[in-house]
């Protein structure tokens, strides 16, 4: 199978879907030049300015464009360049996009995908580095997707585009260059289905986004120390596939939940709370959580590295609950 970067997986997914369905359009800031992360590369050339709509710096207008056009039958994909900017258009996302169907008694259908870039690690400081998925997961009416591999990215993005509900699709900046096998033909990875990225028997690590990578590396290292780690990637954060997660914990008896976002009131809290609710009798130790400390993302690389949760924190969390083997 051909190897592709996550960036290429995104471009291909959008391109193939736009070819399939003329009611799909893409809008966002500087999409005409391929987007600042290259995730829209070549689409303007291929589909033209009517379908690849370059917008002013108007995040409220951009999401409005999506909501209004979807309400009357189009299938918009819009890009909010950095997820940090979502605060600007939260009203359009939360009070309009997420609720319109319900408020109208089911009548509206809003097949919208909002693609956005999340995460720290590129020295972009406090306003260009956040992981705010928890905000959206708390909102009924939207689905929230966060892929960790190029394969999942293409499949989840195609599924999101074909989905008739609004989806927030979060692309991690540090992952964009990651390469992996990606089939050429269009395919779907279903929303709401977690994936066991690695099997293991001693502890379940539930990880999202970039931290899946860190978790897999931690698992390798822990393997050498005699600890067998299962890594589960929810892939869709809302709706959350609790079954897969709980089944894994029922097998391993221990769990560590891991994400890049700030730990306090992060998505790890929901996952940890859900695990202890459903697998209490199987747990040999409290569910551990790994997430960023409670501060904005600092600029200086030395501080940012200290801020970022990574392999070491995952290993420490596992070792805190798994009896030493070696």
């Amino acid at each position, binding site marked *: 199978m051909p190897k592709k970067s996550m960036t290429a997986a995104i471009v291909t997914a959008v391109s193939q879907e736009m070819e*399939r*369905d003329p009611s799909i*359009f893409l809008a966002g800031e500087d999409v005409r030049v391929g987007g600042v992360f290259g995730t829209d590369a070549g689409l303007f050339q291929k589909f033209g300015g*009517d379908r690849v*709509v370059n*917008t*002013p710096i*108007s*995040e*409220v*207008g951009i*999401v*409005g*464009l*999506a*909501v*209004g*056009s*979807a*309400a*009357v*039958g*189009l299938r*918009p994909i819009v890009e909010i360049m950095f997820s940090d900017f979502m605060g600007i258009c939260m*009203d*359009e996302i939360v*009070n*309009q996009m997420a609720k*319109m*169907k*319900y*408020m*109208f*008694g*089911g*009548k*509206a*259908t809003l*097949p919208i995908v909002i693609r956005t870039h999340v995460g720290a690690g590129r020295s972009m400081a406090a306003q260009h580095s956040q992981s705010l998925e928890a905000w959206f997961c708390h909102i*009924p*009416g939207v*689905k929230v997707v966060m892929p960790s591999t190029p394969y999942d990215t293409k499949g989840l993005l195609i599924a999101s585009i*074909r*989905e*008739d*509900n609004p989806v927030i699709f979060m692309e991690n900046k540090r992952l964009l260059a990651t390469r992996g096998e990606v089939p050429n033909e*269009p395919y*779907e990875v*279903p*929303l*709401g289905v977690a994936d066991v990225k690695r099997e293991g028997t001693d502890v379940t690590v539930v990880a999202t986004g970039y931290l899946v990578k860190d978790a897999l590396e931690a698992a390798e290292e822990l393997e050498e120390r005699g600890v067998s780690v299962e890594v589960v990637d929810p892939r869709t954060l809302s709706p959350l596939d609790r079954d897969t997660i709980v089944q894994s914990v029922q097998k391993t008896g221990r769990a560590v939940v891991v994400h890049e976002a700030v730990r306090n009131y992060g998505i790890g809290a929901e996952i940890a709370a859900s695990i202890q609710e459903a697998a209490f009798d199987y747990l040999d130790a409290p569910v551990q959580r790994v997430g960023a400390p409670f501060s904005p993302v600092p600029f200086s690389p030395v501080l940012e590295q200290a801020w970022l949760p990574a392999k070491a924190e995952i290993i420490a969390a596992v070792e805190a609950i798994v009896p030493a083997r070696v």
Partner: protein
Amino acid sequence: MDIPNEKLIEMYERMVLIREFDERAGILMEQDRIAGAVHLYVGEEAVAVGVCSALEDSDYITSTHRGHGHLIAKGGDPARMYAELFGRATGYCKGKGGSMHIADLDIGMLGANGIVGAGPPIALGAAFASKYRNDGKVCVCFFGDGAANRGSFHEAASMAALYKVPLVFVCENNQYGEFTPVADHLPIKDVSERAGSYNMPGVTVDGMDVIAVYETVSIAAERARRGEGPSLIECKTYRYYDHVGRDFGVLKRDKDEIASWRARDPIPQLREKLVGEGVLTEAEAEAVVERTRARIEEAIQFAEDSPLPDPAALLDDVYTETSVYTETRA
């Protein structure tokens, strides 16, 4: 402009229908038969009717928290509206939306909205879709004088002008945003002065004169359909009642102010004109009122007789279930 008699009579009837609908809605709220907040359109009927009469049935409108008039003017059914206000399963939104979220996508009414200023970005999207599909439709965005201060208006207006989408912004300047008079929230005299920021035509019309509104919107809609982009029309009008309901006594307004606007009430104005021009006789005009009142009674009865929603339906309509692996997929 030459307006056919039939259309003039229909405009009159719609205005009366809005008036009767909302006068009763105010009373029903005081009687606790309608829960929550109801924002009455009484006094502003010429705007909704003047605007919607200038549109095709297939055109779109976005509405506001004060949306009953818009929905009726676009052809909404008072029975299903009262049913919604009564929180019944037969309401426009199955009781889930209420007054502030009443909508009828089937007739292009894209929803009342509880968020002041939420309409413009949605209208931008609907108008964009018309341009995208080249289907000749126009979208009208109703918004208040208060909403003119929201950033959402600015972003939508600027983008609409940039893309030249078929959109007509209609500002209902009813002299107040809640309890604050325009002079205390707006640094300019006329909201239409804001059109210059977007290189679009801006005009202020008498919002108590349904014909003036109709004619102005007709021109703007035609322009929009020709692909020449959006316009901004400000209608000076007046909210007869309190911000919510009829009178909760929060706002002390000048008696003379109210009287002077009421003296120009759009409904008798049109009625006199139609009777004066022989379009209607006095008796026919009165019959319209009678007919409307009967219709309102029936509508209220329908609402009252309708079942409440089943609590088991609480979680329906949050998501489209059919969307996962359905026929909409390739």
